[in-house]
């Protein structure tokens, strides 16, 4: 609490000092436009205004950020980039290579970001050693959600290995319950795939295969097993899954039609919005295996001209990582703060579990970026992998063929 008060006061003090020089201005491009997300951004907007800044909102909805990226491309080509843009993962470095990102190391050093952020997450915020982006939250991707009543009625525990999962699923199927609620969209297939890679191959294999794209790992027997498990999972999905949205799959778990769903912790928001209680109505656990797959939203800072805009950028960066915003924002969004020193008393048990695992896996070196959510690879590489994963899941391709196609697709994606 002391620390929190201190941070707030120092924020105010610095803001007051900088407003003497120039009034902070920030134009922020983002695609948080749906209910809970818009509310979360409003928190930042208010905080920015109360520190004397002028916020120009530039929300561009549509296509999971595709529309916003098109807008960004046009703005950058016109030489008039926004102050801060919602970007994540290697896309930050990709924009840095185009030479358009700003250096916010002075803020990061003054605020001691290096001490409060997990090392692997901090690395995403750096461009060749300098800080160029500010993290907002951490979504965990490798979650498995379950309907507590359905599991209890069938005498099933949360599975801790994929074999246990398969056994549980067979039992559920025999009992007439859909074992796995899934939506047949490419990114959802990819989400399940990466949790299976992590579960069967382990964190080291995940790093080699889906981060380093080591051809040996991609064509290994382990990868064949991963595709075998994907084929098994295909059998646990109802036949009407094609094109289903993820939140409809979550609803199937909620109303007991299906038992499990593998999805990031935005699914928790759906459960909570329906008045379900974590631990009682629905259960959360990490997917079978060790490790932690994160999906970190962040704001990349673009090169801007003018002292007022630079002051706005610094203020924005400082506020985003400050404990107050990290807490309020993530309570709204269902994720957990990126900084590790925020008290989590107000967060639910799933968020606490997530934070605990994040600390533990960070120490163990198994805190890994999610490939399916654009944290591990650049667009063309992750897209190439997703093409193979979704083609395999939606056809009767053999695992050996899939592995071969995977290696070819990755080689062809550069």
């Amino acid at each position, binding site marked *: 609490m002391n620390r929190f008060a201190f941070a707030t006061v120092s924020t105010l003090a610095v803001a007051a000092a900088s407003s003497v020089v120039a009034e902070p201005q920030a134009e922020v491009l983002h695609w948080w436009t749906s209910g809970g997300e818009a509310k979360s951004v409003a928190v930042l907007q208010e905080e920015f205004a109360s520190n004397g800044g002028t916020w120009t909102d530039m929300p561009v909805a549509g*296509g999971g950020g*595709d529309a916003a*990226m*098109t807008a960004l*491309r046009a703005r*950058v*080509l016109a030489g008039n980039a926004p102050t801060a843009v919602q970007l994540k993962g290697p*896309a930050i470095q*990709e*924009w840095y290579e*185009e030479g358009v990102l700003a250096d916010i190391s002075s803020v990061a050093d003054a605020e001691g970001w290096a001490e409060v952020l997990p090392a692997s997450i901090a690395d995403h915020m750096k461009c060749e050693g300098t800080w160029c982006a500010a993290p907002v939250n951490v979504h965990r991707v490798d979650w498995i959600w379950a309907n507590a009543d359905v599991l209890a009625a069938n005498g099933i525990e949360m599975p801790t290995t994929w074999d246990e999962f398969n056994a549980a699923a067979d039992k559920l199927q025999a009992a007439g319950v859909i074992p796995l609620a899934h939506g*047949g*969209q*490419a990114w959802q*297939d990819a989400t399940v795939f990466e949790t299976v890679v992590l579960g069967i191959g382990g964190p080291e294999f995940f790093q080699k295969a889906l981060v380093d794209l080591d051809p040996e790992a991609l064509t290994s027997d382990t990868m064949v097993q991963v595709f075998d498990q994907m084929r098994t999972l295909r059998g646990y999905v109802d*036949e*009407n*899954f*094609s*094109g289903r949205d993820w939140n409809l799959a979550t609803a199937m778990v909620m109303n007991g039609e299906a038992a499990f769903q593998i999805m990031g912790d935005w699914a928790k928001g759906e459960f909570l919005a329906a008045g379900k209680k974590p631990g009682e109505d629905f259960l959360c656990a990490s997917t079978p295996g060790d490790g932690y797959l994160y999906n970190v939203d962040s704001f990349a800072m673009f090169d801007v001209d003018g002292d007022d805009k630079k002051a706005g950028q610094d203020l924005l960066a400082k506020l985003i990582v400050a404990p107050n915003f990290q807490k309020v924002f993530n309570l709204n969004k269902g994720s957990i703060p990126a900084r590790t020193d925020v008290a989590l008393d107000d967060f639910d048990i799933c968020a606490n579990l997530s934070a605990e695992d994040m600390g533990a896996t960070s120490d163990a070196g198994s805190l890994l970026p999610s490939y399916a959510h654009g944290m591990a690879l*650049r*667009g*063309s590489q992750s*897209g190439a992998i997703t*093409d193979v994963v*979704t*083609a*395999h*899941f*939606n*056809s009767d391709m053999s695992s050996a063929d899939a592995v071969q*196609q995977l290696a*070819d*697709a990755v080689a*062809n*994606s550069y």
Partner: protein
Amino acid sequence: MSEWLENHLPKVVLAPSFIAVLIFVYGFIGWTAWVSLTRSKLLPKYEIKGFIQYERLFDSPRWDTAINNLYIFGALFIVIAMVLGLLLAILLDQKIRAEGAIRTIYLYPMALSMIVTGTAWKWILNPGLGIESMVQGWGFPNFEFDWLVNPDYAIYTIVMAAIWQSSGFVMALFLAGLRSVDGEIIKAAQVDGIPTWRIYTAIIIPSMAPIFLSAFIVLAHLAIKSFDLVIALTGGGPGYATDLPATYMYAMAFSRGDIGQAASSAMIMMLVVFAIVVPYLYSELRAKND
């Protein structure tokens, strides 16, 4: 002065749109061709690197699927829509009652956007909501109609929706053609005792050749640029089983930050259009010169 104006007014009036077309159509075609020869990723780069993007394109199984789908979709869509449109037009041409009302009903799908058509057919064809569950509810539990979610058949659902949308329009084209055939010839044939079907196959349809050509050109370019229908109906899925070149290009340019790849696929699409349109233009121009 006024004489000069009189002589040059058409040119002056046309000049702005001519310049706009020059820049925004041919200029950007040239730009796309240039970019397709580079290694552009997130932003366009202008350093020429040869045909690497085309090599990548033809190595990609997803592009293979997209091109195959274009053949299947294009061929079935054009042929069936034309046959159906012609049949409807001939039936409507039999001096039936309430022709105006029926004609309007057949034309109505054309008034909908492809997005609406796609969404409606998505619901109709969804095994859990639409035809399959309805027929099963009537007491035929073994009835199966899961084309929408079956990767091998999903492309045919797109053909269905597209035909539903466009055959009314083709019918209108053909109906106008049928009405323009000289009534005297038909009457003469009837007097000679030639059966009606012979009148159609030997006299009316051959005299409508230009209409066939226009219908073909309209349908062919609809097929090649098809995008919204796929997005609304299947989203390219299951997997990427219903990808078309246009959706492939969109994915590369806007989701994956692979502009070079998108540009090369756009060039191939353009070549396919050229392959259809150039012979048409050639024959048109030659006809005028004769």
